[in-house]
């Protein structure tokens, strides 16, 4: 098992004819992902290395039965592309686009919430998701992820930072630990999928036996996740929070201080997670080592 995506997931790539979309879309296919179509307005009828291109997501879905979309279009076009996928009934949308205005993200998130509750958005500004050996949507280099073993124990990964997601996959592979699913939720202000969404799925997934969580300074998502873990996650966890020594960000007027109420520092997040029973490492390697100890205990 895995969460959100598996070997049956059929993926369309919005922007398959563009530079990034083509490069990563084809890499995803090479990995074994079921990439069934591409969508680029005005280029319907063409193909990219055998993958048919459609003008609209609705046409692509009707022709292929796709149930997931990989959005790889520039920031100006990404909000509309996400909503187009949702309107066409796509249940899982992965958006890697970096640089979408926060106002647009907030509008897209709340539009999905009210009009398309059956569509889950992952991202924007995220590396995507990989269920090793089954499905890879996004920009993760598939070879750094170790597929899960039938007997386990296997680890689920959820991360706010793209490159640290790869780092976590890599640390586990070095240690010979399989991964059920690795989800990069992205570091933007309004992520479509958050830590808690992923933790809930991992808790319910019988093939995930332990979880690594990687957070970073800013916001309060890690503190909220810690609160959720305390009452809802029985599986053992390790974590790492980036930014212990990061320069203090610019304080956003009085409003920032009032909203955060002292939350947002790396230390505060590490303390909250440790209080919830999570083993917290001081760097990604240490978090990997802590997970290796957890896995050894489960074997």
């Amino acid at each position, binding site marked *: 098992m895995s969460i959100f995506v598996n070997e049956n997931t059929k993926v369309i790539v919005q922007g398959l004819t563009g530079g*990034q979309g083509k490069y*990563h879309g084809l890499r995803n296919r090479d990995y074994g992902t079921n990439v069934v179509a591409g969508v680029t307005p005005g280029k319907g009828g063409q193909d990219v290395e055998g993958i048919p291109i459609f003008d609209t997501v609705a046409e692509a879905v009707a022709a292929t039965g796709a149930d997931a979309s990989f959005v790889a279009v520039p*920031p*100006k076009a990404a909000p509309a592309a996400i909503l187009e996928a949702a309107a066409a009934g796509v249940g899982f949308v992965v958006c*890697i686009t*970096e*640089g*979408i*205005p*926060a*106002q*647009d993200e*907030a*509008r897209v998130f*709340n*539009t999905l919430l*009210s009009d398309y509750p059956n569509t889950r958005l992952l991202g924007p500004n995220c*590396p995507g998701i990989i269920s090793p050996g089954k499905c890879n949507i996004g*920009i*993760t*280099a598939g070879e*750094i992820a170790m597929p899960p073993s039938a007997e386990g124990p296997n680890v689920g990964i959820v*991360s*706010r*930072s*793209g*490159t*640290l*997601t*790869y*780092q976590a996959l*890599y640390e586990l592979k070095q240690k010979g630990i399989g991964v059920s699913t690795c989800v990069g939720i992205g*570091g933007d*202000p*309004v992520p479509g999928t958050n830590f808690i969404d992923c933790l809930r799925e991992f808790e319910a997934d019988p093939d995930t036996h332990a979880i690594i969580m990687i957070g*970073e*300074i800013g*916001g*309060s*998502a890690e503190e*909220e996740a810690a609160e959720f873990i305390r009452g809802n996650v029985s599986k053992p966890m390790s974590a790492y929070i*980036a*930014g*212990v*020594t*990061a*320069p203090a960000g*610019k304080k*956003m*007027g*009085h*409003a*920032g*201080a*009032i*909203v955060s109420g002292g939350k947002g520092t790396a230390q505060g997040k590490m303390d909250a997670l440790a209080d919830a029973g999570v083993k917290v490492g*001081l*760097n*990604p*390697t240490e978090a990997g080592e802590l997970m290796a100890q957890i896995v050894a205990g489960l074997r």
Partner: protein
Amino acid sequence: MDLFEYQGKQYFARFDIPVSPGDKADTVDEAVAAAEAAGYPVVVKAQVQVGGRGKAGGIKLADNADEVRLHAGNILGMDIKGHVVHRLWVEHASDIDEEYYASFTLDRAAKKHLLMLSAQGGVEIEAVAESDPDAIVKLHIDPVVGLDAGTARQAAVDAKIPERALDGTADILVKLYRCFTEGDCDLAEINPLILKPTGEVHALDAKVSLDANAAFRHPEWAEYAETEVLDERERLAKTHDLQYIGLDGTVGIIANGAGLAMSTLDVVNQVGGSAANFLDIGGGANADVMAAALEVINFDQNVKSIFINIFGGITRGEEVAKGIVEALGRVDLRAPMVIRLDGTNAEEGRQILADAGIPESKLRSEPTMLAAARSAVALAQN
């Protein structure tokens, strides 16, 4: 991107939010001219992006041209907590009956817009938030629905803003919300929002932070980029479009992704070193970007070693390697480099570096992030 008060007020004016008549001034003569145009009495205000201007003597009242000359002369060039005053804002002084507080931000936890409104505005608003949190009304707004005048008025009622100021406050809230959304602000804050004896409600200060991601649809923001507070290193980085923050240490850092860059700072610190900077070359960086990053690092005289920490995803290892080779041909790097390269096309990247025949004294390759950090810190301490 944070705006100065005068820019914030000019931005507010675009959305019809009432502000005091005034103008910016870079010299004493300009200050007098601005004062004459605004009408006495005036307030002469230092334009710096730091709190506590008033206590530092950076805000003065003037009743005539002589007083403007005196105060403007004193304030220009003044150092307020490390920020030197190069510019003043001179505006007509307002009579104040009451001071309120109003702001719009994005509440990341709720994923909604957040209005905060209080009848107890002024310099002590953060203390009010601690001692009497109920005195600040917090209202979540669905970005799809927006804020209408009725809801804004009710928020003002809930904040115990007096009857005679309700309509004026509601009107400003609706305009400030438009400024926040259509104006692509991360923060739009008025403190204090004042009630004048005449019954008018009016923005006496402006704190605006703009979302840099939205710059593509705001050509009018170009002028703000010219006044952004940056040190020389940061200015050079900006010309290359790099995410750079200058720090005080000796290990120059180049990483791809904000998380990995922060993590690199952490690891350098943990093994006893100190970072000279935060530099995220972003996703999909090509050889040009890599070469530019090395130029920026090389510009910093404190840098004794350079730690390049790359885990390729959208960034490809061979592009990073080409960038390093290219930079070596373009820039005379003073400090030795230590590289850790993994992820997408890392093998090809390592091969390119090996084939380039760069001496070990200039570039050392390490298998892990920790080993690379130790190596870079040791080089910096030699």
